């Protein structure tokens, strides 16, 4: 162990964790509004990265233009998935819907390989590569800025959720579907909105990740890190998503980076640690840290 490097790995972990938090937000949002755990979240993210790559490679767009256009695609993808795959299952057992998201993940995986090929690609740089030095800690500027964008996205969403009519409608529908319908809210539309936003945050996270580590089908698996994040934070909690995301990033970074023994590192424990952590959390607190407590008056 080299404790001198601790701040370095901690900071790197926090920055990556910010992106996990954004992806986790999408999961929380869909779970909150429709009680569905979206197993396809990682694959939507991967699709976004490939679409952004396609825009830059085949249409010659700049990365920022491609980024904007990919967000547009994300909205469409979210709305289409909700309309075509999820809405017909309203009223069916929740397991059917969850299986549907699993099926979706496989379909998306296949579609991406079919259209874009399975080769690893790379996006043009979104941010300059120079290092940022804070005392002992050296950080990559692109990671810092990606973290900043992820947090900005998170903040925008929280403001939307808190202060707009649609945000209020979403919070209401998340609590009680029948009651929401009784006051005239169109619940299927609200689901559509939830899927659209979840796709957007996934795809923003995907492009940010891909701009750092490359475009590949493996991105879907990297996004799986958001699962322990939401389970730690509580499936229904938005603050939980951010805390869970950061925690998972830090655990991954510390466990993967701190031990200096080469044989130990070869085990890639950093990839496994978040899931071990998830298991422990589930044993102690099945609802996660901020899982929703039902308000009951006595």
């Amino acid at each position: 162990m080299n404790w001198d490097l601790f701040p370095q790995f901690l900071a790197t972990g926090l920055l990556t964790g910010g992106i996990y938090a954004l992806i986790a937000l999408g999961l929380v949002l869909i779970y909150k509004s429709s009680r569905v755990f979206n197993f396809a979240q990682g694959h939507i993210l991967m699709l976004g990265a490939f679409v952004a790559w396609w825009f830059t490679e085949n249409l010659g767009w700049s990365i920022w233009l491609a980024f904007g256009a990919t967000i547009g695609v994300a909205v469409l993808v979210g709305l289409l998935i909700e309309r075509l795959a999820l809405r017909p299952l309203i009223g069916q057992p929740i397991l059917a819907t969850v299986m549907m998201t699993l099926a979706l993940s496989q379909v998306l995986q296949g579609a991406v390989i079919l259209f874009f090929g399975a080769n690893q690609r790379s996006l043009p740089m979104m941010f300059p590569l120079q290092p940022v030095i804070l005392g002992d800690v050296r950080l990559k500027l692109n990671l810092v800025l990606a973290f900043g964008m992820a947090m900005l996205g998170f903040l925008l969403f929280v403001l939307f959720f808190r202060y707009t009519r649609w945000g209020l409608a979403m919070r209401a529908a998340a609590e009680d579907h029948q009651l929401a319908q009784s006051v005239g809210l169109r619940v299927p539309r609200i689901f559509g909105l939830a899927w659209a936003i979840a796709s957007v945050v996934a795809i923003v996270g995907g492009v940010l990740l891909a701009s750092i580590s490359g475009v590949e089908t493996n991105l879907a698996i990297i996004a799986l890190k958001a699962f322990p994040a939401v389970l730690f934070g509580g499936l229904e909690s938005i603050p939980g998503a951010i805390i869970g995301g950061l925690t998972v990033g830090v655990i991954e970074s510390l466990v993967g980076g701190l031990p200096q023994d080469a044989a130990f590192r070869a085990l890639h424990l950093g990839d496994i640690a978040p899931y071990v952590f998830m298991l422990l959390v589930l044993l102690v607190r099945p609802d996660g840290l901020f899982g929703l407590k039902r308000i009951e008056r006595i």
Partner: protein
Amino acid sequence: MTWRQGESSPCLPFSLSPCRLKCMLKLNNIEVVYSDVILVLRGVSLEVGDGQIVALLGANGAGKTTALKAISGLLRTELGQVTRGSIEFDGARLDRLGPEDIVERGIVQVLEGRRLFAHLTTEENLITGALSRRNGASVKRDLEMVYDYFPRLRDLRGRVSGYLSGGEQQMVVIGRALMAHPKVMLLDEPSLGLAPLIVEEIFQVIKKINQQEKTSLLLVEQIAQAALGIADYGYVMESGRVVLDGPADKLRDNEDIKEFYLGLTQLGERKSYREVKHYKRRKRWLG
């Protein structure tokens, strides 16, 4: 007084009909089935006139709530459907519309049991009632209107509604329905689980809303006396049928009704069910 046997003669003598002025809402002989097999309403007809309060009374399981849900369209969220008959509102058919469209047309149901969005604040709960309206501009004014009806809510506007008292929650729920500017409000047991004093207060506000906003009300109640006290007309349901109807004051004074449908025995003694059954049968023969 019109006694009815099953589905016979849904027509009322003109002078007694609640729709003397203008009919807002009309149920024509509707039949409701849950899950394709459970027959819950077997031919219910009732009318709510413009600006009227109509009470819908009856024992538990008589089908009162189902009748309200049939009107508001919420039936379909519970696998129920109107299989026969029709529901008309302002001259148009309602029974094929979804609950959201029905709210948009001006009918809002206040669900039984003070159902609110427990994690939202009082004011957020009220605003959800206005979300279905196209013009969001008047929300502030409408909030003021609700706070005028229920002054207590003004101080509780920022409080998480799940922690309000039962009476306050009932006020939020009625206020939320009011935010949609309904032409007809369907109220399901606003007195449920509340102290008598609060019930009285709430009924007074209901009457006031009816008079000031010209909102027609269809009121389902167990406390028959309170409901008939503010209602213009009343219907009594029993096992999925309307068995009796008439102007509220007549229903209130009628001994038989008090005795057998509304549970208001004068002597304070209990009657056995056998006696009731016997009495009813005799009454039908005589009627």
